[in-house]
């Protein structure tokens, strides 16, 4: 069975890879592409640990076929920091200890980033609803929500 050849853009870089027709995007990221920051938690779209964006749309990479990436622009957790410089959300998650085991963290960061790009001034309720598709079994969510709210406030200030 011939593999499918996929041409896509990941974190701004043109990328090509081969996949089986039924490989998920998460399979491709963690396999041939070597981008293991996206995690597999549930593989059924419930936990959000595999969150990425496709043409700026937040999705679960476990619910997308790798073949569908052809011609689209993807962003993963690996594209979030600029070299050594962490994204403000990453920095704040560290400062606020908004993680413990870390499995949900890349998905939380990608999802939070997608929220702040759409809405730089979310209410706490909006943050909680937005992150309802990202499960964390360690923190109880308060620290994560606080980190997102504080980052949003600081980014708004910096933008002025």
């Amino acid at each position: 069975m011939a593999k499918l050849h996929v041409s896509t853009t990941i974190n701004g870089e043109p990328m090509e890879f081969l996949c089986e027709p039924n490989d998920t995007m998460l399979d491709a990221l963690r396999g041939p592409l070597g981008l293991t920051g996206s995690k597999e938690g549930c593989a059924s779209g419930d936990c959000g640990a595999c969150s990425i964006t496709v043409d700026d749309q937040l999705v679960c990479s476990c619910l997308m076929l790798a073949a569908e990436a052809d011609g689209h622009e993807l962003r993963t957790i690996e594209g979030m920091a600029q070299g050594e410089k962490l994204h403000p959300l990453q920095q704040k998650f560290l400062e606020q200890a908004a993680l413990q085991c870390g499995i949900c963290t890349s998905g939380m960061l990608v999802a939070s980033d997608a929220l702040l790009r759409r809405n730089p001034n979310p209410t706490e309720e909006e943050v909680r609803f937005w992150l309802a598709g990202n499960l964390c079994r360690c923190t109880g969510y308060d620290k994560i929500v606080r980190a997102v709210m504080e980052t949003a406030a600081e980014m708004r200030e910096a933008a002025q």
Partner: protein
Amino acid sequence: MQWSAPRNDGPSQAAGNTTGNTFIMSDIQYVAPRTLDEAIGAYAAAGSAARILAGGTDLLVQMRSGAVKPGLIVDIKKIGEMTAIEETKDGGFRVGAAVSGMALHDHPRFGKVWPGVLEAINLIGSKQVQGRASAGGNLCNASPAGDSVPALVAAGAVVTVAGPQGRRELKVEEVPAGPGRTNLKPGEIVVAFTLLPRPKGASDAYLRMIPRTEMDIAVVGCGVNLTMKGGVCTDARVGLGAVAPTVLLVEAAAKALIGSKLDEKALEAAARACSAACRPIDDKRGTIVYRTKVAGVLLRRATAIAAKRAQER
């Protein structure tokens, strides 16, 4: 080396180490045609082993669990009309079957005209799921608890399907045949939903009962679509979900509302009609008694919201 510059091993190296631990079989094909005719041809030729891929939020889970083993996956998202949202000059809408919940949410006008339909579609799954999941997929998955379906039934949406025999139109409530089954003929694909122009004073609402605040499956879902004129309800449609093998159009409830000022007597009659229409199952989400009672409660609440919105329009 920057994090933002991922390794590009190229196809030759990549070919060797695809994880692929999910599926061992290899007799599966993926196609993403650019025209509807090509999609219908491929889908019809592959017979019952073929599956349509819109957002994939049901299909990929079913493939992963082994419940579905497609021989052919037909991705319909490269077909223009499948992902288009059109507002017609007279104020109607045509929504492609594969339009995602988020795309519909971000449309500047749709949610103003059909707030109930939009809120129902936007209740499906998380924001990640919203980035992919479509009303077309929700309808064809044919779960009795699909959130978008009761609202689309209440809205009187018309479904355009296309197949080897050409195009035809169905009412939304005519599509589901039972849990996981539809009345589509072999090779037929849902193409779009058409929503008629609305008179002034018309609006809709959808409510579902879940024990959580988010990310759950409806115990009962209720869509109400009203037209109000001088405080009197002149037209109504009611859709009920998760209380029967298919989503229901409850004409008796609508009849109880039409001609009334949505007074207590009319609401009580409509709520009773909803409860009477219920043929639910007992399961971990809710008992027969509970679902039957809640159907009437949601009718009252959704009617109140739709009436308020209708007044403001």
